[in-house]
């Protein structure tokens, strides 16, 4: 105990001095447990309990509740996007098909892209992080809990807006990239493109807000001892991703605001007839759009590392190389966007730079693949479904990465750009590179989130169907692109010779869809009826497994102190913990950015409806601007009032002092 004081006493924060203790005592189950935990549990459970009452749905700020909502909502959009994909595959399954009209097809392929990119891929990665990151960091909560609630409602409203518009036959129909001048009012009358522009505002506000919460949680709320060289690789990946979101998303919001103002108040940012520049759009859009791919892919790298560690029974080979590779990917990811624009005829020297940069990014990806193979080599693989998803990931992603190198080459890109070859490539990297790891890690973390195990047999079946179906669907598309089939066409003639491969791809899509359905059904059924899971059913090494499944609302009774990358594998029988946080107030331990030494305590807010009301008022403003610029003038003051109410201080100074006293007495009790 005196050890702990001398170790941490020097770093006590100024505002609220921390009564920290490192205590080694008898324990039964968790290395971080102390005697008397049962009473503490009762008090903490009361303090951290979520909102109750008839309006509780609108008031929750608990990261478990919001994380689950985020995940479920993102999967609903994923299901809808998948149905749209199935409709497209039906239409393209044979030449001259008349199942869908041109107008329906254009809406459907746009909706599919918009749904998967804006409503599934990025949100699901953030959703999983909202739930898991505080647990992996050993913290009681996610930073800025009310902002989390606000982000969730914005995300939900955005998706509802998009699908209500689609069912009213006003779905966007100019592609998820929405190039002007096709998106300019002259060529896209009606409200379809405006729906796209506002959807982007909804989802990107949500994405940026969650990214900031994650950055702050990861930098300031890690368990004591989790210095930067001990952060789990998944947490690293979310940190890098979050920074990328903060830098990339403003570009697309800027462009969507310019587009909305072109359409609403007659500006001419992108109107070539009045001196606007359609290429400006492409630069802005792809300056977001290419990092977006890595924003989806880098979390998946972290997920793969978690799975490989747990199922090869050893730490990932080359921790430092892995972290640096992820950081490098994050940086280089911002220097590639022009490879989407080789066909625009931009100068050759500039293009060659982007060729080199696009090939360069294969190096950090390669290093990570090699490190995982080395881990498998030296470890002892256990063939549970999550590990199979990782093996599927390696096979598919490496192929997708290699076609990516092809697309980096200007001459090859000039041939296959905007063809089915690119469709194949992007699904290899996004489904193989991100969805497979995501499905693997959700299987791995399922017991933690729900407290129940999934059915392994169903897991194997879903993996097999997905792997076979995926390759049947997308591998033929490489060939289709090379023999001339362009993207985004609702029909083609029989003499093009594209029929047979398209039929094959459509059959594959059915198999892939079946695999996804089996996976989701397995999740739904196991959620209700699965075998009860213990705290750590897979013997995972990181802190999320140090608490019960599902975790209590406060995550950890005592703040664990860690001394390595795999704390649970190295922890002595009685690992040190930090005590002294209040049980009466929602206190969270704040640690220092680099060495994670305890710094001070921070009191979290109580459940509140204001984030919901703020989301409603900003939502009304965004939806209103589809129809009239006055929506801003009217909506902004309303939103401002709501946000002021939200920010109104509710914790008087006196209460803070009281907390301090209680903490002191608590320390004495423990001592």
């Amino acid at each position: 105990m005196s050890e702990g004081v001398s170790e941490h006493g020097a770093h006590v924060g100024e505002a609220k001095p921390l009564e920290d203790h490192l205590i080694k005592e008898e324990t039964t189950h968790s290395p971080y447990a102390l005697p008397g935990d049962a009473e503490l549990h009762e008090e903490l459970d009361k303090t951290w309990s979520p909102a109750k009452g008839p309006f509780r749905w609108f008031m929750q700020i608990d990261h478990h509740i919001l994380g689950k909502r985020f995940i479920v909502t993102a999967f609903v959009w994923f299901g809808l996007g998948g149905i749209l994909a199935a409709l497209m595959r039906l239409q393209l399954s044979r030449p001259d098909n008349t199942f869908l009209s041109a107008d329906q097809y254009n809406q459907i392929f746009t909706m599919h892209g918009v749904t998967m990119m804006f409503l599934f891929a990025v949100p699901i990665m953030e959703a999983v992080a909202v739930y898991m990151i505080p647990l992996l960091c050993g913290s009681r909560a996610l930073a800025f809990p009310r902002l989390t609630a606000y982000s969730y409602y914005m995300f939900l409203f955005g998706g509802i807006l998009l699908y209500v518009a689609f069912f009213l036959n006003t779905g966007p129909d100019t592609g998820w990239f929405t190039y002007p001048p096709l998106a300019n009012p002259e060529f896209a009358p009606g409200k379809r493109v405006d729906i796209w522009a506002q959807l982007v505002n909804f989802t990107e506000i949500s994405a940026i807000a969650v990214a900031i919460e994650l950055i702050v949680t990861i930098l300031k709320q890690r368990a004591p001892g989790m210095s930067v060289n001990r952060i789990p690789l998944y947490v690293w990946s979310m940190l890098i991703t979050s920074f990328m979101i903060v830098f990339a998303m403003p570009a697309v919001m800027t462009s969507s605001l310019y587009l909305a103002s072109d359409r609403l108040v007659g500006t001419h940012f992108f109107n070539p007839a009045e001196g606007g520049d359609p290429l400006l759009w492409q630069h802005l859009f792809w300056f977001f759009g290419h990092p977006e791919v890595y924003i989806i892919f880098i979390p998946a790298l972290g997920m793969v590392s978690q799975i490989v560690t747990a199922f090869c029974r050893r730490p990932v080979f080359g921790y430092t190389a892995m972290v640096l590779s992820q950081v490098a990917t994050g940086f280089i990811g911002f220097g590639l966007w022009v490879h989407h624009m080789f066909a625009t005829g931009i100068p050759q020297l500039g293009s060659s730079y982007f060729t080199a940069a696009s090939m360069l990014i294969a190096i950090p990806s390669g290093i990570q693949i090699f490190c995982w193979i080395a881990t498998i080599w030296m470890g002892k693989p256990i063939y549970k479904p999550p590990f199979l998803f990782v093996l599927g990931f390696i096979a598919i992603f490496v192929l997708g990465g290699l076609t990516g190198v092809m697309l980096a080459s200007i001459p090859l890109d000039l041939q296959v750009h905007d063809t089915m070859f690119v469709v194949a490539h992007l699904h290899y990297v996004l489904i193989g590179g991100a969805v497979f790891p995501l499905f693997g890690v959700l299987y791995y973390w399922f017991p933690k989130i729900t407290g129940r195990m999934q059915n392994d047999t169903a897991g194997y079946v879903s993996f097999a169907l997905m792997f076979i179906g995926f390759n049947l669907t997308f591998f033929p598309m490489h060939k289709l692109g090379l023999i001339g089939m362009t993207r985004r066409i609702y029909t083609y003639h029989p003499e093009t010779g594209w029929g047979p491969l398209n039929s094959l791809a459509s059959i594959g899509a059915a198999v892939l869809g079946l695999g996804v359905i089996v996976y989701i059904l397995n999740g739904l059924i196991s959620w209700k009826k699965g075998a009860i899971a213990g705290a750590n059913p897979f013997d995972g090494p990181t802190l999320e497994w140090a608490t019960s499944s599902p975790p209590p609302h406060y995550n950890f009774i005592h703040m664990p102190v860690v001394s390595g990358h795999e704390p649970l594998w190295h922890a002595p029988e009685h690992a040190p913990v930090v005590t002294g946080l209040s049980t009466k107030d929602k206190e969270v331990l704040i640690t220092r950015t680099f060495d994670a030494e305890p710094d001070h305590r921070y009191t979290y807010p109580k459940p509140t409806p204001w984030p919901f009301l703020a989301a409603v008022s900003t939502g009304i403003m965004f939806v209103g601007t589809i129809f009239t610029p006055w929506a801003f003038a009217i909506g902004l003051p309303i939103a401002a009032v709501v946000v002021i109410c939200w920010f109104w201080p509710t914790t008087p100074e006196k209460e803070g002092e009281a907390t301090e006293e209680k903490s002191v007495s608590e320390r004495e009790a423990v001592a």
Partner: protein
Amino acid sequence: MRGIQSALEPAGAQAEQIARLWDVFLITATVVWLLVMLFTIAALLRRRPEIVPNATSPRVRNAVVAATGLTVLTLFALLTASIFTTRGIASVPDRAIQIAVTGKQWWWHVEYDDRDKSKRFTTANELTIPVGVPVTVHLRSADVIHSFWVPSLHGKRDMIPGKPPSTFTFQADKPGVYRGQCAEFCGYQHANMAFWVTALPWPEYARWVEASRQPSRIPSTHTQRKGQEVFMNSPCPLCHTIQGTPANGKTGPDLTHFASRRSIAAGTFPNRRGFLAGWILDAQHMKPGSQMPSITLDQGDLEPLIAYLESLK
């Protein structure tokens, strides 16, 4: 599999160079993928000690470093090959045939340039080019972004409105007919915006040019004359030009030598009597959203009109 629009069956110098580069990338990628799979499978199946050591073995570390080094070298080799091909396909010859192509929703306006203004002529949805002679296309768009792509001859180039024409040079080395298609999503009928490139030996090409410079044929039969009358008295001339007649609309394709073309509606239907009749009467059903309206004709006017159009060789 023979494709009419395939990058794997090059018919010209530029497409040929890209196809060879493709071979290099394809072979390299296949080898790399197989090696990664081989090592993964070996790592899975390898016999291993009962107790897994946590320490890093120097042999494995060296293997990872070597693999990384090999990756860098391979990428550098591919980059070099790519840059040489980029230079190879970009070399611009001194003398080339100049053709201006303008993309419109959803068809192609084609103008053959000449210093002598009287020798210029216009056509649509088809390019005819000589074999073995470089052709420079000047690409423009009249509305939204389109992309000009004939995979057998070269890669694609976007046509961006509000920019100076983008120039793009290619050459056909084999006589033949090659299909091209708009590659940038351009709205409702993006799928049906195709065109044909016919590569002819020089003498035939010269004859074709000479014929194309002529005004339209004078109707020679009674039916054709009646058809011309129907054409001139219907809305057709508002949008279409037929050289040598009062029809000089600019919205739709030039029909001066319409009968010599392979297809109608931008590569959507073969240029045959049945399709033509359907196209005139019910274009909005055959290619919904196109600028061509469905035309109402009086009883007995359709046949002469088709006869007239079919005479425009």
